[in-house]
């Protein structure tokens, strides 16, 4: 009797195990089948409901820095997943949350701005992130420096670049080359007079020969640009009066369109092209 009961119990257990295995196989197969069905997503729907860091910090029960770490780690994974097409839609919002939770956490500012510029092609978001970094960390020169770099190299917004480099220069510890970047931004902005004065100042207070040489080359370039503009202007007026371009710079001087025949900073003559009416330096400013 006991033997029969034991055998029955064993067979029921075996049946149960078989049932479990079948159920497990079924739900695994169904999971794979469900995963294959692609569900439509709202743009940015995966992150759109993350609240502002201002409110989120109250929900972290004092673990604000850990929450910032977790969201930052997640953000790195999220933004390096190219299959999420709309991942950049709320980039500034996400990094704002991290910055709000841990304002002294430096990496998210730099990495966030880098993602904004290089991946999202959204310089506005980069400026927003870097401005927040500068506001939360006024002792860090790197944020206005990076913003200036983005304005100079990516956006080609030279007045904005000048503003950021100027802001950067005021922060103790900022490298001396920032002043040169600012002078370059002023030159590219087209303010040749201020550019000349800035480079001259850099030249005068240059701490070493290398910096002096760099400043000298830029001064050479600024002067050549000013002279070329003056020649352009004179040649245009000459053409207007005589109906043909001047044959050389002497002609422009003799006819009174130029007060003197310009020479470069090294005292050499400029090369004049009668066909275009333009001048250029004999040597490249950067190979003097």
């Amino acid at each position, binding site marked *: 009797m006991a033997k029969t009961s034991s055998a029955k119990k064993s067979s*029921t*257990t075996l049946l*149960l*195990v078989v*049932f*479990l295995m079948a*159920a*497990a196989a*079924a*739900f*695994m197969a*169904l*999971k*794979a*089948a*469900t*995963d294959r*069905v*692609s*569900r*439509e*997503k*709202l743009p940015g*729907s995966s992150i759109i409901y993350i609240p502002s860091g201002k409110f989120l910090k109250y929900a972290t029960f004092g673990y604000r820095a850990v929450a910032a770490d977790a969201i930052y780690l997640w953000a790195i*994974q999220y933004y*390096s*997943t190219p*299959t999420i097409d709309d991942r950049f839609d709320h980039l500034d919002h996400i990094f704002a949350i991290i910055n709000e939770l841990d304002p002294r956490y430096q990496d998210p500012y730099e990495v966030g701005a880098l993602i904004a510029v290089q991946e999202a092609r959204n310089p506005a978001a980069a400026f927003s992130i870097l401005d927040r970094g500068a506001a939360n960390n006024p002792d860090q020169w790197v944020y206005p420096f990076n913003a200036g770099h983005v304005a100079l190299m990516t956006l080609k917004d030279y007045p904005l670049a000048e503003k950021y480099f100027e802001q950067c220069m005021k922060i103790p510890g900022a490298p001396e080359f920032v002043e040169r970047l600012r002078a370059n931004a002023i030159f590219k902005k087209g303010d040749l007079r201020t550019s000349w004065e800035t480079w001259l100042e850099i030249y005068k207070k240059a701490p070493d020969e290398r910096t002096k040489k760099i400043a000298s080359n830029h001064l050479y370039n600024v002067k050549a640009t000013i002279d070329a503009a003056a020649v352009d202007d004179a040649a245009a007026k000459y053409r207007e009066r005589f109906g043909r371009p001047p044959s050389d710079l002497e002609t422009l001087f003799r006819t009174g369109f130029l007060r003197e025949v310009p020479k470069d900073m090294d005292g050499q003559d400029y090369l004049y092209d009668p066909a275009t009416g333009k001048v250029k330096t004999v040597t490249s400013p950067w190979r003097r």
Partner: protein
Amino acid sequence: MKIGAIAGITFKEAKRDRILYLLFFFAALGIGGARVLAILTVGDRVKIIKDVGLASISLFGVLMAILIGTGLVYKEIDKKTIFTLLSKPLHRAEFILGKFLGLVLTLFVMTLFMSLIFLAIVFAHTLKIEGTLLVAVGYIFLELVLVTAVAILFSSFSTPILSSLFALAFYLIGHLSWGLELILKKMAPGAGKTLVRFLYTVLPDLENFNFRTEVVHGLPIPPGIYLSSFLYGVCYTAFILGLAVLVFRRRDFI
């Protein structure tokens, strides 16, 4: 028949549980409170009402399933009524299934009432009955059924506090396991990837029952997913119940 009788008794027992009404009260408060939250928004108020309402049904439903489900089997053992029950011609599997169905019935009634309040509030704002919301509620209920099975599984061998923690962990894992897919895409082939793939396949994916975003935003839901999600829920629940029966059969009460 025996299963039905136990389910009936479980339903009556659950009806007397004060915690059920407390949770229902808070659920109703949450659904009604959505109206107040909606006032604070700029733009689509109905969206807030739908979001918070569906979240309340889901959250409080899960709490009901866990807090009542984890005590069901343990109470019988603690009060020693299990001896009376098992001395009758009753299989342990019938006992477990009866308990499960009784709680599922309770949750069905509760979900029904919560949904009625929810639909009434939505109706007050939109002046139309939105049938698609019932799709989301239906799959929330399916999720509750699975969580109930999990609560009963843990209740069959552990104390209510531990069982609640385990069941809650199951719920959290179920809603976070999709993250493993992201990790899988970044992992180099090897033993680690195989392990993560195994975990991804075996761990519950409760996001399969989450149609709340689609329903609230009126996004199209691929027809194929209804059936596969439903069957996934049924098979996973059957697996958990089978496991519960297996564990419960091996327990010695003497």
